[in-house]
């Protein structure tokens, strides 16, 4: 196994184009796959020295989060935490403190697990990612990246350089909740990220709910605008949200949960994240 540390994005892409090359950021997924012989790379491309890929900073129109920034570093960024508390909730749930010291948003997305914690939150926040490749950089909405479990829309030689999140407009709140059997250290049985914005009368002006672990990829719930826009959430609209969430589920039965359980929890977490996000929006 070769190990290279490219110093530029182009060098990284050129290395990643080669057969059997794997990108290494935080390594919290890749090293497990190496240990269990799930993958046998011919080359590991450590992308952490590529410019801009590490660190978090405020930009003119929002936030830049380098794809290889450890979650622990993002969580320590006070003004980002104020802007996107739900995203921070989600990424701070990726594994233990030790995992946080290494795990990255780029890795969490490109591992392409339906249960990735940060992904529903980033999608609900309408985040995008900058993809670096051999010939060009491109920007894509995050929901376009994962196409099926373990598979992404990245082309050969491409990797994620970083994430862009908008500066939340006033009256915006987000929230992320997941269901795990224990209090920590588990993979999400269901994850839900919700972002809502309200006007000064506390009426909802936009809403986005994204669910994880209930289908082969993350699912953005459809049809919420008709129910919520221009209104405050009430029992009736929340019940409709629960039904839509349950109907969107195409889960599998596995060691982490039954189909019935995942479906039920998708509804519960949609409701609970909406309540928290709405509360945050009205106080924002």
């Amino acid at each position, binding site marked *: 196994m070769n190990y290279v540390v490219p110093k530029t994005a182009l060098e990284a892409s050129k290395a990643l184009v080669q057969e059997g090359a794997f990108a290494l950021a935080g390594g919290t997924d890749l090293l*497990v796959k190496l240990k269990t012989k799930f993958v046998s790379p011919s080359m590991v491309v*450590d992308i952490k020295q590529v410019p801009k890929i590490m660190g978090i900073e405020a930009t003119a129109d929002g936030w830049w989060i380098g794809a290889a920034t450890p979650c622990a570093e993002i969580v320590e960024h006070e003004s980002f935490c104020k802007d996107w508390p739900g995203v921070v909730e989600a990424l701070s749930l990726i594994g233990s*403190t*030790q*995992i946080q010291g*290494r795990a990255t948003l780029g890795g969490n997305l490109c591992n392409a697990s339906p249960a990735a914690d940060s992904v529903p939150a980033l999608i609900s926040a309408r985040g995008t990612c900058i993809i670096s490749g051999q010939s060009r950089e491109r920007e894509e909405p995050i929901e376009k990246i994962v196409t099926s479990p373990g598979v992404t829309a990245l082309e050969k030689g491409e990797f994620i350089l970083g994430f862009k999140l908008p500066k939340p407009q006033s009256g915006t709140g987000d929230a992320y909740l997941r269901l795990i059997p224990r209090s920590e250290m588990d993979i999400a049985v269901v994850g839900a990220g919700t972002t809502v914005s309200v006007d000064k009368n506390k009426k909802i002006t936009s809403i986005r709910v994204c669910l994880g672990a209930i289908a082969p990829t993350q699912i953005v719930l459809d049809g919420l605008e008709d129910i919520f826009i221009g209104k405050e959430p009430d029992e009736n609209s929340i019940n409709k949200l629960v039904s839509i969430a349950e109907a969107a589920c195409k889960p599998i039965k596995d060691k982490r949960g039954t189909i019935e359980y995942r479906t039920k929890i998708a509804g519960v977490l949609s409701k609970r994240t909406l309540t928290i996000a709405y509360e945050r929006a009205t106080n924002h």
Partner: protein
Amino acid sequence: MSKTHVATHINGDSYEFLCNTQQTLLDVLRHELDLKGSKEGCATGDCGACSVMMDDRLVCACLVLGVEADGKKIETVEGLSTGSSLDPLQQKFIDLAALQCGICTPGVLVAAKALLEKNKNPSEEEVRFWLAGNLCRCTGYDKIVRAVLEVAAEARNT
């Protein structure tokens, strides 16, 4: 295949070693450098017995490649004590019987020290969530949490 040369700092000392690229930092610490204090309980980042500091971040040594340690600052359980004086956490773990078999202890101590450096006044809940990645099967965690809270309190009072 030829091995890779790595130069690193461990517990304040310079180390150079040769390793295979597949070897983890834990493999290197244990097998190449004979630093056996970091333990392998799972090799997949689930138990925390190999917790070490890398450039002031708490990580599982089993989830870091040995080659990634090049130019980095690594701190392990072997670096907690200074000369013949134990770190207050080490002493408190002995005093309060916060260990039974002791296999998780090195990782727990490294993680707890990282917490107290970041947060001088952690709540019980903060200690518990910070240490959630350090599995202990013997103690039920009670005396571990008490020991960390007591060391924090004593540090604040001195």
